Every structure is written in structure tokens, then in C-alpha cells.
């Protein structure tokens, strides 16, 4: 099967006025129809930049400096701005983190949904309204007829995120990029949103790029995973491979840092008490180590890690890690 979206060796830099700093350095991702790719990492690792670069919405001073992004065979980096506008909201759309601020406060729900339909599908406003209503039903908003005339502030956070999803799905895009779509929501609502996304994905065969810092969310949603660290994709593979047998020390560190809920009998298991730690923090832009970027925080790092760029090590077909010692797993955690 061909990937619907392929990011190859993407490089993004930011012009700080004095020099161009690397933000993303050779990120490669493949997104398949009907599948979900989880992109994980701490803040500052370049997850959102990857998403924005794909959408062609990089902020001022940020620019793609290398690599390619192909959407259904079309080179997005070569596309004209007008073509990109045609694709945005149509073939690819995006869901943002903050449903509170991502909707225009002064426009009705109807307007915000129909706008994208009228723009890309050249429908009349009556038709667009029908589709909008359909979309609201699809995202399981109760009383969709009433909600059309509502303003965002009249909706709860979960409802707003549903509206965002309705907007994103309105033109049946091939790809949806969901940038931390549930971070701002309560856990019970997060569960609802994830379920909804999965259901809709099954119906539409849309590919989803789920950007998250939460390995739990990855486990819940993703088929494939890419782990980003300091602008590099340090590990990628299927969700089973990565969560089951993480190869990169960073991935393993993240796994150990995540507190697990222990229910039932496990609740009183004193063995599970400990919480792992990754010392230090993600290096800021422009201060990325030269060789392995994770080396300063890595307990396994030796001199080689600090001096030589690590190779891509394929632990299994489709599962690769950017590390000198991918097999030294489990030795430390």
C-alpha cells in the first residue's frame, strides 16, 4: 500500500536574524490511508513544526530547508501558495490543541463549517448547510440543528473539539493532522473524542497524524509511531514494536517516566511504585549536540555517542532507531 502522505528527510530552519538554526533535521514519516501515525516527543522536539510544515503554515521566519513532502503523489513543497490553499482544509486538514481558541469567537458554528465546504466544494449555501448538519451529526453533537446557530463560547470544550473535527472532516480529507487534540480536555472527554476519531476514521478511511506527548494516547490510537527528539526522528515503527520493545533509550526513558494507573490487585503492588527519570531537559534550538542529540541525557552514552552521529539501526523490518546502542535495551531503565 502506498502512503498517502510521505515526509522524507524534512529539514526546517528558523532565521533568528543572525543565523539559521535547524529546527527539524531529517524527519521522515509515512502515513497510510485509514491508519493513524502517532508522533510523540516532549515539547520542543519538533512535533508541531512537522505538522505545520506539512500544512504549509510555518510561522514567519521558519522555512523548509530540505527534504520533501508528498501528499497523494503531489509534491507540496513545490506547490504554489494558491494550490496549497486548495489543498488545505480539503485534502488535508488540521485539528488544533486548544478548542477554546481555535474557533473564531464571533462566527457561528454553521458559518465556520460551511465556509470550508463552500470554498472547496463549490456548494451553494443551502447545500453547505445540509452538509454541515450532517457533519455535526457525524461528530455526535446532540441537537445539531440548534447548534448550527451557536457561537463557540456557547459550547463546552468537548463540543468545540467536535466542531473542529467536523470542520476538519467536512471535505473528506485524505489526511488529518491532529495536534494534541485532547490535551486541553478532561480525561472522560478525551476518551469520547478518541473514540469518535476512530469511528470516523473507520468510515472515511482518512489517515490521521496524531501529535501527542502522551504514550498512553499513542497506545490508544496509533498504528504506527514516530518518536521525535530535538528535531530528529529517533525511532519509528509499529505501535506494538515501539511500545512493546522500544529500541531507543529515549523511548525507553519516556516509557519509564509515565506513571501507570494500577487498578485492582495491582494497586497495592509495591514493586510498581518507582518512576523512572530522564535527567535534564530537551536542549533548546541552536544548542543541539553535534552527534547523538540525546547523548547528554542518556545513561548509556559513551564517548562515541558524544562525537559521532549515530546510524539508523533497523531492529526489525519497519522498526528503526537512531542509536549506537539500540540493542543495549533493558540493561538500564
Amino acid at each position, binding site marked *: 500500500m502506498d502512503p498517502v502522505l510521505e515526509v522524507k528527510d524534512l529539514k526546517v530552519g528558523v532565521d533568528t536574524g543572525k543565523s539559521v538554526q535547524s529546527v527539524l533535521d531529517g524527519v521522515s514519516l509515512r502515513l497510510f490511508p485509514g491508519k493513524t501515525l502517532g508522533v510523540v516527543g516532549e515539547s520542543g522536539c519538533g512535533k508541531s513544526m512537522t505538522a505545520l510544515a506539512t500544512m504549509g503554515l510555518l510561522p514567519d521566519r521558519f522555512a523548509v530547508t530540505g527534504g520533501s513532502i508528498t501528499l497523494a503523489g503531489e509534491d507540496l513543497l513545490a506547490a504554489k501558495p494558491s494550490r496549497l490553499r486548495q489543498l488545505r482544509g480539503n485534502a488535508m486538514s488540521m485539528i488544533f490543541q486548544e478548542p477554546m481558541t481555535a474557533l473564531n469567537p464571533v462566527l457561528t458554528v454553521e458559518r465556520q463549517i460551511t465556509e470550508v465546504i463552500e470554498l472547496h466544494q463549490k456548494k451553494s449555501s443551502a447545500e453547505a448547510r445540509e452538509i454541515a448538519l450532517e457533519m455535526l451529526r457525524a461528530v455526535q453533537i446532540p441537537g445539531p440543528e440548534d447548534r448550527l446557530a451557536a457561537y463557540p463560547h456557547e459550547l463546552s470544550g468537548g463540543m468545540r473539539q467536535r466542531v473542529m473535527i467536523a470542520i476538519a472532516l467536512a471535505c473528506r480529507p485524505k489526511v488529518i493532522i491532529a495536534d494534541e487534540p485532547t490535551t486541553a480536555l478532561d480525561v472522560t472527554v478525551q476518551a469520547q473524542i478518541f473514540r469518535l476519531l476512530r469511528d470516523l476514521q473507520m468510515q472515511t478511511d482518512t489517515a490521521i497524524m496524531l501529535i501527542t506527548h502522551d504514550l498512553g494516547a499513542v497506545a490508544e490510537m496509533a498504528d504506527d509511531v514516530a518518536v521525535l527528539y530535538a528535531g530528529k526522528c529517533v525511532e519509528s515503527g509499529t505501535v506494538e514494536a515501539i511500545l512493546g520493545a522500544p529500541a531507543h533509550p529515549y523511548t525507553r526513558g519516556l516509557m519509564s517516566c509515565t506513571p501507570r494507573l494500577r487498578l485492582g490487585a495491582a494497586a497495592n503492588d509495591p514493586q510498581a511504585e518507582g518512576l523512572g527519570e530522564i535527567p535534564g531537559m530537551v536542549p*533548546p534550538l541552536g544548542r543541539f549536540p553535534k552527534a547523538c542529540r540525546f547523548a*547528554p541525557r542518556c545513561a548509556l552514552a559513551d564517548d562515541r555517542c558524544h562525537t559521532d552521529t549515530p546510524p539508523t539501526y533497523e531492529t526489525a523490518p519497519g522498526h528503526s532507531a537512531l542509536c549506537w546502542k539500540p540493542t543495549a535495551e533493558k540493561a538500564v531503565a
Partner: protein
Amino acid sequence: MTDTTATLPQSGPEPIGPKPAHPVTEFMRAFARNQSAIIGLVLLAIMLGTTFIGPFLYPVDPYSMVDLPFAPPGGEYAPLGTDYLGRDMLAGIIEGGRATLAVGAAAAVISVVIGILVGSFAGFFGGAVDAVLMKVTEFFQILPTLLLAMVLVTIFGASLVTITFAIGAVSWPQVARLARAEFMRIRKLDYVAAARTSGARNAYLIFRVILPAALPPLIVAAGLAVGAAILFEAGLSFLGLGDPNTMSWGLIIGQNRNYLLDAWWTVTLPGVAIFITVLAISLVGDGINDALNPKLRRR
């Protein structure tokens, strides 16, 4: 104690974290990048220099007649011409600048002090205090400022002091609103709560914690208030309510207003002086504002 700390990673004076410049440095840089703000700063320096160093460089008595009335600029005795009494315009503008700037600065200080007091108490305490203070503010805002100032000056006499107080007394509501908004915003920040839990009294919270944080926009407002007060004074003088015994730019305009058609310089030149000064203040104010605006700074 020591055994636990030993195992913790010690973050040294050179934290690994991002090392942004100090806000003040950052601010200076942003300001320096703003060309119009720099132009404003230069203009302001020129005007201040003219006013305060001018008398030493150009020691002509602004009150004495040096030439025939209405001698045009470029004349032998008065480079910028003379006014209706044959007094030197340049000396008048140098002399008038001091009063004008003094009125402007003093009135701005008055309005800013009242405004900050009212605004900070309203914003800090909220509730009934806020309601009462804001009613008072609203009350002052629905009265046309100039009219009110005219009444005040008429009642208490046209002297620089009363004019200054009148201007200050009618222009504080804007500052108060700004201060209130800032206080309301900042008092919700956790570090204010933290200071309270650290045992800070209200006065400490208001003046030592919140006020310094609210100050930057208020400083800009104060700067702009100086400009506004200068214009205000000019307006009063134009209407004949200026202090006749102290030369100010507004007074020069007001007194020569009737001769505008025949002696353009008598009105135009002090007008230009006001214009440049207020323009410079505004440009600098805008520059500070922009430099303080993180959204703009990042660009």
C-alpha cells in the same frame, strides 16, 4: 538532607535551559530596531535640548522687544521673526517650551498618580471598591474633558498651577482604566497568590508586586499623557484660558492667533514646536509599546 541532594542532578548557574536575554535587554534591542522610535527619541532630545540648553546658547530676553512687531523670520534681530509686540519668536519658543513641558509633565504626573491609585485599588480589591471607583471614573469620562477643564480654570483662575491641576484632574480616567485592567490581569497571576501566601500584606502586593509588573504600559501611558497635556494646555491657551504671565507655546499661539493671516510664523512656529514634541513622545511611546509587545518582538 545531604544524602538525598547528592543524588539529585545539580543545576548550576549555567542552566542547560534556554537562555533568553534579560527582558530589559530584550526590550532595548527591540526598541533599537524600531526606526520610527529612534527618530522620535532624537526629536525629543532636540526639543528638550532646545528648551533646557537653549537659553544658554541663545540668551535673548523673550519678554523684551527686539524689533518691530511682526518682523518676518530671517530678520536682522530675530532669526524666527517677532510677535505682535516685537518680541523674539525664537527666544519665546525656547522660553515657552519650559512652561509647556513642565505643564505637560506635571499634569501627566498628576493624572498618572490619580489614575494609578484609583485603577490599582479598583483592580486589586474588585467588588464594591471597584464598583464605586469605576462609577467615579465613568462619571469623569462622560464629561467632556476640555469643557470641564475650562470650567476649572475659569473658577480657579488661569495660572500654570491651576491649569496643570485642571488638566491632571480631568485626564486621569484613562490611566485609571488601564491600571485597573492591568491590575485585574496581574492579580490573577500565580506569583501574586504566591506572594500572598508568603505573607505579603495588601500594600506590599499592590505597590511592590503588582505595580512594578503593571508599570510598563503605564509608563507608556504616562508618556502619552505628557503629549496629551501639552495639547490640552495649548487648547486652553487658544481659547484664551492660558496663563498670561508665563510664556508657553500654547500662549504664543493663542496671543498671536488673530495675526495668523499676516504673520504666519507667530502661530505656525510654536505649533510646529508642539507638533514635533508630541510627535516625538508618541513615536517613543509607540516604540516602547511595540518593544513590550511580545507578539511583535518575536517577528
